[in-house]
């Protein structure tokens, strides 16, 4: 989806500000949010559980920019728990299970869940190979995609085939395709000037990992 998370190439955010001796978590609650997010993931198996990144990207842009990183994670996690019916709004408000509520059961994974992004042991022919000239297709899906806006319509060169992976894109409701759309993922080199015109560095380049569906021959 074309929203604020897709930040590559934007101006106006100011300088990068490192923090000296930064702690891993700045507040106790941040660590809890991180750990909770990881711990509840298995409960999404077999349930209507929108993709992690889709849910983050669905935060309205003005809010997205005003939230800290772990606030976004908290929003994402609670949204998934609500959408899947694992938790109710009153439970969130009170901090107690609803009276008479049944304990949820762990379900076996289904094809409509959100499995990990593993490399798939699937033998598929590769449409492209190293040194092939390719163009990033001009795609604007309403769901989650890993094709950043700044490469769309731009030409590049395949430098490496990473192998066959499940496509991570979702539909506009945050669901991944049940057949996982296994396909080759390529490292593609885009010259900086191709992406950014004269503002690009004359000898610089950006390497982007792109699923085969995102590419066409140049």
């Amino acid at each position: 989806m074309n929203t604020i998370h897709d930040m590559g190439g934007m101006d106006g955010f100011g300088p990068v500000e490192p923090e000296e001796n930064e702690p891993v978590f700045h507040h106790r609650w941040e660590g809890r949010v991180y750990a909770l997010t990881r711990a509840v993931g298995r409960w999404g198996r077999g349930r209507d559980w929108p993709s992690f990144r889709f849910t983050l990207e669905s935060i309205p842009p003005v809010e997205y920019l005003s939230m800290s990183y772990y606030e976004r994670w908290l929003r994402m996690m609670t949204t998934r728990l609500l959408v899947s019916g694992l938790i109710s709004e009153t439970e969130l408000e009170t901090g107690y299970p609803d009276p008479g509520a049944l304990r949820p059961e762990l379900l076996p994974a289904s094809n409509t869940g959100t499995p990990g992004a593993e490399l798939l042991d699937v033998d598929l022919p590769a449409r492209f190979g190293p040194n092939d000239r390719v163009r990033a297709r001009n795609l604007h899906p309403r769901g989650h995609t890993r094709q950043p806006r700044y490469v769309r319509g731009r030409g590049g060169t395949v430098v490496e085939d990473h192998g066959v992976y499940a496509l991570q894109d979702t539909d506009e409701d945050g669901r991944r395709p049940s057949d996982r759309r296994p396909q080759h993922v390529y490292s593609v080199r885009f010259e900086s000037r191709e992406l950014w015109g004269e503002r690009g560095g004359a000898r610089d380049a950006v390497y982007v990992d792109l699923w085969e569906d995102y590419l066409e021959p140049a």
Partner: protein
Amino acid sequence: MDESEGRPVDRRGFIRDAAVGAAAFAAPGKLMADQTESHDHARDHGHGHDHDHQEVPADVALRVRALESVLVEKGMVDSAALDEIVDTYENRIGPRNGAEVVARAWVDSAYRDRLLADGTAAIGELGYLGGQGEHMKVVENTPEVHNLVVCTLCSCYPWPTLGLPPVWYKSAPFRARAVIEPRAVLSELGLDVPEDVEIRVWDSTAEVRYLVLPERPAGTEDMTEEELAQIVSRDSMIGVARVEPPSEGPAGGGR
């Protein structure tokens, strides 16, 4: 999916609505009184190094506590297991792992070759694969090429070798600017890359995670592998710093 067609409620709308509900849920009243809230609350506000961009609503700690509490009571999570996850990333998995990989590559050219040819396998030799670092590519800095890692879409980062990313790496300025003006970003961070050096920016958009193999500094020929690992900084493995010889600054350290 056929099942979705008959749904009475548009799911995207539901996710948006749920997100609003998730945002709006209030601090629990009862919870504040009967748990050790004052202790943790004091801790949350006692770190003393907040930055403006880190300011969050004061009740967020309470909301997280309520969420954890209800998930524990529903039997979905175990607080001790959460403690373990936090402890792992606060104390056990961090950039010292990546520094070991770099130091090994500096002293063992056969390992270096394997690392650059198949980062996953070579990092696996040292045991540093895992979540958000299942598939690794290592890119080598040379006098001709400088590499920089970013994730413009989110915050992808090699957790098993570098730990969790710092705030600046996840911030809008870095995500927005690293791809369009890497030299300006690096210069602001104190690293001036000569004009005749090519900059390669690696945008971690898929499932491969990137680690920069920095150049070994001159004057370190007599150092052992363990000593070398001490001078390899996190930032050098992201590509926003060089590794400095030990005399020029604090060894190792957070950055």
